[in-house]
C-alpha cells in the first residue's frame, strides 16, 4: 500500500501540509514562536529579561517598553521572549519524553503481546486512571519545582496516551504478511519494529504529538496556577499569566500578552495537528 501511493508521484507530505490552510497557519505560528525562542536563547531581546528598572515599574506599552513593564519594571516583551523559550522547552521536551517512552512501551507491548502486553498496559491503566493535574502535582511536590521537573511531570502524565496510540496499530500491522514473513525468516524483532511498524503508525502519532504539544502548554499553565511552575527569575508564559491574576486590574497588559501567547501557541499546535491529520490520514485525502 505504501508502494502504490508512491508510484503516483503525489507531492511530498510536507508540500501538501503547506497547501493545507490549517497546517499552513499552524506552521507559521509555531515557526514565529520558535524563532522568538531561539532569539531569546541567544540572548537577543530588547532588554535582559530579568533586568529590573524599578522606577519604570507597571508602565503600560510605550516606545521604550513595547509591551509595558511588570511589578519590578522588567520589560514584558523581553520576558515574553524568554517565556517562549521556556514554554517551548517544556512543551517540546515533555512531549518528546512522553512520546518516546509511550511509543516504546506501546510498540513493545503490542509486538510482544502476552504477559508483556498485559503488564505494560496494566501499568498504563494505572496512570490513565489518575487525574492529570493531581498526578503532575504529586510528581512536582515530590521532586520540587523547576523547569526540568515540570518537563518530567508533564511527560509522565502524557505517556500512557502515546502507549495506547502506538499499541493499537502495532497489533494490526504485525498480523500483516510482510511482518509475518520477516518474523519467520528470523529477522531481528527490534529492526522489524523500527523498519516496518513505525512508519506505518507515524501518521496518527504525528497528529497526537502536535495535540499533546498544545495540551502541554495548557498543563504547564495549570501547574503555574498552583505555584508549581518554573523558578523565578526565569519565566514561562504560564507563570507570567498566573502571576498576572492579581495585578491585571492595574496592569491589564500583564495578563493580555501572556494570555495571547498561550492561546496562539495552543492554536498553532492544534491547527498544525488538523493539517497533519488532513494530509496524512489516507481516508481524509482528497477532501
Amino acid at each position: 500500500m505504501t508502494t502504490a501511493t508512491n508510484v503516483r508521484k503525489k507531492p511530498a507530505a510536507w508540500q501538501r501540509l503547506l497547501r493545507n490552510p490549517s497546517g499552513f497557519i499552524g506552521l507559521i505560528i509555531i515557526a514565529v514562536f520558535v524563532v522568538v525562542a531561539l532569539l531569546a536563547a541567544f540572548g537577543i531581546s530588547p532588554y535582559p529579561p530579568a533586568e529590573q528598572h524599578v522606577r519604570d515599574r507597571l508602565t503600560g506599552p510605550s516606545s521604550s517598553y513595547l509591551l509595558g513593564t511588570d511589578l519590578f519594571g522588567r520589560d514584558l516583551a523581553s520576558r515574553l521572549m524568554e517565556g517562549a523559550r521556556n514554554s517551548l522547552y517544556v512543551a517540546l521536551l515533555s512531549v518528546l519524553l512522553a512520546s518516546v517512552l509511550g511509543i516504546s512501551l506501546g510498540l513493545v507491548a503490542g509486538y510482544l503481546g502476552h504477559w508483556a502486553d498485559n503488564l505494560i498496559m496494566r501499568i498504563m491503566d494505572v496512570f490513565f486512571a489518575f487525574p492529570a493535574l493531581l498526578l503532575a502535582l504529586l510528581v512536582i511536590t515530590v521532586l520540587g519545582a523547576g523547569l526540568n521537573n515540570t518537563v518530567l511531570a508533564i511527560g509522565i502524565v502524557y505517556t500512557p496516551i502515546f502507549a495506547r496510540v502506538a499499541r493499537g496499530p502495532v497489533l494490526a500491522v504485525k498480523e500483516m504478511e510482510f511482518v509475518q514473513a520477516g518474523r519467520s525468516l528470523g529477522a531481528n524483532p527490534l529492526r522489524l519494529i523500527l523498519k516496518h511498524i513505525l512508519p506505518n503508525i507515524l501518521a496518527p502519532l504525528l497528529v497526537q504529538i502536535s495535540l499533546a504539544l498544545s495540551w502541554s502548554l495548557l498543563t504547564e499553565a495549570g501547574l503555574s496556577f498552583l505555584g508549581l511552575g518554573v523558578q523565578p527569575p526565569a519565566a514561562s508564559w504560564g507563570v507570567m499569566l498566573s502571576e498576572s491574576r492579581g495585578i491585571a486590574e492595574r496592569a491589564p497588559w500583564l495578563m493580555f500578552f501572556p494570555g495571547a501567547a498561550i492561546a496562539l501557541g495552543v492554536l498553532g499546535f492544534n491547527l498544525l495537528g488538523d493539517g497533519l491529520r488532513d494530509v496524512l490520514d489516507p481516508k481524509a485525502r482528497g477532501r
Partner: protein
Amino acid sequence: MKRFIALLGLILFFSSSLAQGTLVLARAADTTGLDPHTQTAFASFRLLELIYEPLVTLDGDLNIVPALAESWSFNDDSTVLTMNLRQGVTFHDGSPFTSADVKASFERILNEETGAASRANFTSIESIDTPDDYTAVFNLNTPDVPLLAAMASVGAAIVSDEFIAGGEDFAAKAIGTGPFILDQWTPEEVTTLRANTDWWGEGPYVDGIEMRVIPDETSIVAALRAGQIDFALLNDPIAATLLIGDSSVQLNQVPALAYHVLQLNASREPMDKLEVRQAISCAIDRQEVLDTASLGYGEVTGPLTIPAFKVPNDELFCYSKDVDKAKELLAQAGYADGLSLKAIVASAEPPTALSEAQSIQAQLAEVGIDLEIESLELSVYIDRWLAADFDTAVALNGGRPDPYTMYVRYFTKDGNLLKVSNYVDDTLDSLMAEGRAESDPAQRLEIFTQFQKHLTEMSPWVWLYHDFEYTAQQPYVSGFVPNPTDSLYSLSQVKLEGKE
C-alpha cells in the same frame, strides 16, 4: 430595549440578597481545628477568638485590657501574678466560669500530652492557686513580665474544667465563654456562629456570623464588589489594595505585627562570617523590596514592629542601601569575587514571598551575590525551615505584642527555635533576660532598643518591612476595630444598620 430587558433579567437572575441580621464574612483560608490550645494557624485563631476567651486581650493599640480577668497585679519581683476574675460569666453550655477553669486550662496547656505549641510561653508557671472562685494566683519560677502579654491570645483560652476532666474531644466540640456560639463547622466551606445572648459584655449586635471560605482572594474582592458578602479578611496586599478608591467598599488597614524578613543561616558557610551577613544587609534597599512586592503599602521596619518599641530606621545598621560598603565587607570576608547562595521561599505564603525574593535576588546581584530561588510548597518549606535546611529563607514571621515573647524562641540561648535562627550571643541573651524581668516601661524600651541595634548589626537576619492587616467591609457595617494582631474579637461590637 429588548436587549436591555434581557440584560436586566440576566442580572436579576444571578443576583440574590443577603439574609438580614447575619454578618456574612469571607476569607481564603479555613480553620484547621477547633482545639484552642493546639491550634497555631492564624486562620484558626480568627474563628476561635470569637468562641473562646483568654483572661486578658489586646485592644487596637496593643494595650492589655480585661477579658475574663477584670484586673491583675504582679508582686514586686514579678514572680506572682494574681488575677481577679470576672463574675457571672457562663460557658456556652450554661456552666459557670470559675478559677477552677483557669487552673485546669493552664494545666492542660502545660501537659505535654496535649501537644500545645504555646506551652513554651508558659513554662515559667510553677503552680496555680485558687483561693476562691474568682481569684487565680500564678506562682512563677522566675520573674516573667511578658507572661501577661502571652496570655492575651486564644492559645491561652480558658476552657471548662469539667470538659477536661470528662475527657471531652476539643477537636469536635467548641464550648467557650465568647460572644459567639459555634453552630456548625463544615471545613473548607462554611462555619456558622450564632450570637451568645448570655455573653458578659455588651453585644453582640448581630444574630450570627456566617464565615465562608472563598479560596481565591481575587474572588473575595469580586464578591465584595458584587455586594454578596458583608465583611472579608484579605491577605494579599495586591488584591486588598484594589479596593482603595472603590467607593462601594470600605478597606480597613492597620499596621501588622508580622514582619517580612530574609533569614540568613549563620551556621552555614559563608554566612557564619559576620561581614558576609552585614554585606547582605547593606546590599538590600528595603524600601525597594516593599515597593515591588507589596506595591509600597507597608513600612520598612527593624526587628520590633510593636509601635511602642520601634527604633527609628536610621539608627539601625545599614538601613540605607550602601553597595560600596557591601562590596568592601565581602572583600574583607574573602569573597571579593562574589558568592552563590540559595533562598527557600514558600510559593504563596505570604502571597508576596516570591516577589520579595526576586527583588532581593536582583539587588544582591549588584554586589556579586548570586541568589538562587527555590520556591516550595508550604509544608515542604516549613519542613526545611524547621530543620534549618537552607542558606537563606524568605519568611513572614508572626509578631507578638511583647518584644520578649516575640524573639525568645529565636535569640536566647535556650530558645525553642534557636536551631532555626542559628544565631545567639551573650549580649542578646542577657538583654532578653533583663527585658523579661524588668517591669518599668521606660527601662524596657531602653533594653529592647539596644537589643534591636545589636541584632541588626550582627545581621543574623535582614528585617525588611511590615505591611498591613487588611479587612474590608460594606459601608453599612459599623463598630469593627481593626487590630494589629488581625483579631476579629471586636466583631462582637459590629452592627448592620441600613443593610438591605
